[in-house]
């Protein structure tokens, strides 16, 4: 890995290694949120939540824009993945489900024996 890539990976892991930031990221991936509204969801100051959003932004996970007095944040996943690699990622999730169907059925067959 190049140094720039290493730095990016550090920023990414740092951003994801915090429970509040993961929670913020899930929310903004599902749709754009104002930082004010996000802050209301947590038992911490607006400034603290704003700081978490800034860490996510630095890691390239979140895009921020201004609308009047509001700061709006949304998850940025476009930068990272092509459609093909996304379908492959999805395939892994589906394969997990299929494996669990198979295990569920197999566990019953064992009980019948």
């Amino acid at each position: 890995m190049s140094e720039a890539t290493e730095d990016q990976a550090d920023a990414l892991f740092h951003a994801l290694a915090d429970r509040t930031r993961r929670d913020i990221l899930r929310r903004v991936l599902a749709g754009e949120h104002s930082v004010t509204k996000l802050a209301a969801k947590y038992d911490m100051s607006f400034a603290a939540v704003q700081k978490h959003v800034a860490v996510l932004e630095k890691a390239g996970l979140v895009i921020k824009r201004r609308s009047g007095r509001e700061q709006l944040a949304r998850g940025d996943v476009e930068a990272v993945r092509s459609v093909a690699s996304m379908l492959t990622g999805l395939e892994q999730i589906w394969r997990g489900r299929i494996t669990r169907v198979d295990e569920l059925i197999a566990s019953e067959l064992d009980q019948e024996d």
Partner: protein
Amino acid sequence: MPVTDVQQNLDNLTLTITAEFAAPVARIWQVYADPRQLEKVWGPPSYPATVVDHDFTPGGRVNYFMTGPEGDKHAGYWQITAIDEPSSFSFDDGFADLDFNPTQALPVSRNVYAFTENNGGTRATYVGTYASAEALQQVLAMGVVEGATSAINQIDDLVSGR
């Protein structure tokens, strides 16, 4: 592995997976028709699913949430569009808030699950068509976040000697 075929269609954002199971069609149907079985297979072990509502009829809703390692909850829904027991069912799915109100105007994907008899077992075909590349990215990014969370927790467990 029960998966026998995977087709990705990049033009219309469709994923088709075929799998074979060693149980009759009626048994595989039950996995989806019974909420207690559905929740066993839907979420990964690190994000188990809880099915709250399960109106498995055309026009009905299935509401569920998944619980992360830190007790964090993430809700989703299925809007059932067709049921043809035990051969196939169709649903639109999407993300929801914890009161199961969809968080977006449009569903994320349309899905058709079909089951046919195959040498005493079942051939299952799962087809998902995503509304847009953004919708697909969103679903996957959620999965990536979940994966990263469990990986980080495993590291936490390791370093703390649990």
